[in-house]
């Protein structure tokens, strides 16, 4: 049993288990803090900075990043002061500069009172550098297909040596967690591609469903499922059956994806 600490968030006295982050506690208490790079199922990385809060009490009065700030005895947190709102708005404007058309980001912007951005990037690639894709691929899928390169403004997500990835299994998790649609997945006929602005990251031939004949999944993905999902359950991936056929014909549920897609702030 983790010991508890007493903290205050927006004037509310709360008992929270040691080791929890301020954001986690606030969420449990139903206190809204905007987040972008944070995702329940992933290790927080604190990159977007939208979740900033003002802290005082047992820490020097300052602005901290709530998704990586652990609670401690006597901590006083203010989640929505004037100063925080002002800072958040600037951060959001900066994010919007390079991602002006993402509906999700615009919705979140509206929530914190930003309509347009004063800043303009020369080129937009829709990527907010939240790192969710890199983290999901590395920590949840274990494929290690994506990585960061370059620094500062040039920082970007790519594959090893910017080549078509040999390690990507074509699961689409990175696409699913990307908050802005900067990463995309497309099935065309019997081919699947995973791509971002100006770069195809991986390309696959799709295997056909043995029941309906529709191409539906890359071989590497099926092998991954067999190894990581079926085998631990003592099952084998005997036939290749697409999710629809598995449901209809066999009344057997297709195994749930092993990545527990949490609720993102955008509700998917």
């Amino acid at each position, binding site marked *: 049993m983790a010991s508890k600490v007493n903290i205050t968030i927006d004037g509310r006295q709360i008992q929270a288990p040691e080791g929890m982050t301020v954001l986690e506690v606030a969420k449990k208490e139903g206190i809204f803090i905007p987040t972008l790079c944070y995702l329940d199922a992933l290790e927080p990385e604190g990159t977007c900075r939208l979740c900033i809060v003002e802290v005082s009490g047992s820490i020097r009065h300052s602005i901290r990043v709530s998704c990586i700030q652990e609670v401690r005895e006597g901590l006083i947190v203010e989640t929505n002061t004037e100063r925080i709102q002002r800072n958040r708005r600037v951060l959001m404007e900066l994010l919007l500069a390079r991602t002006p058309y993402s509906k999700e980001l615009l919705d979140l912007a509206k929530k914190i009172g930003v309509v347009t951005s004063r800043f303009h990037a020369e080129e937009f690639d829709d990527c907010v550098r939240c790192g969710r894709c890199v983290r999901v691929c*590395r920590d949840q899928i274990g494929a*290690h*297909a*994506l*990585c*960061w*390169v*370059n*620094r500062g403004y040039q920082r970007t997500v790519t*594959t*090893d*040596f910017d080549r078509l990835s040999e*390690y990507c299994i074509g699961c689409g998790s990175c696409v699913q967690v990307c908050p802005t649609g900067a990463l995309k997945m497309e099935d065309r006929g019997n081919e699947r591609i995973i791509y971002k602005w100006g770069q195809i990251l991986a390309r696959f031939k799709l295997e056909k469903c043995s029941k309906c004949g529709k191409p539906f999944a890359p071989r590497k993905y099926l092998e991954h499922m067999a190894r990581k999902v079926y085998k631990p359950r003592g099952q084998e991936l005997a036939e290749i059956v697409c999710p629809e056929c598995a449901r209809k014909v066999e009344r057997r549920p297709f195994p749930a994806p092993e990545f527990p897609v949490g609720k993102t702030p955008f509700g998917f």
Partner: protein
Amino acid sequence: MLDIETIDSILAKFPQTKGNLIAILHEVQNHYRYLPEEELRYISKRTGVPITQIYSIVNFYNRFSLKPKGKHVICVCLGTACHVKGAEKVINEVKMKLNIDVGETTDDMKFTLEEVRCIGACSLAPAVVVDEKTYGKVTPKEMSSILAKYNKE
């Protein structure tokens, strides 16, 4: 061509990969004067460190290079002090003499030209570092004779 022997002998010096990856990469870089892709992929297989992670690290540090470098690396300081003292003329001298731009290598693989912002030798401005050796108060003329010296080696 993948040179397994060299890499194996470097790896043998580091029984533990954890915490030593940068040191390993340094040795490989020193040996080849850059980090060849095939060798990096082999290191990844041998150590179990994902190649994406290695690629990210190599990309992060300026010291590492994915492109072959020349036998001698000429690094001209363009920091504030050196700039004021005429580093621009010195670097232009190199560009003209070797017919390469910053970040490029001569066709004969002898020289690579790089620039840096202050190497902490401002009192010697303008400063130039060739390989490990620092030259101070360099004039374009001196630069030209430094080049000639290394060219003979």
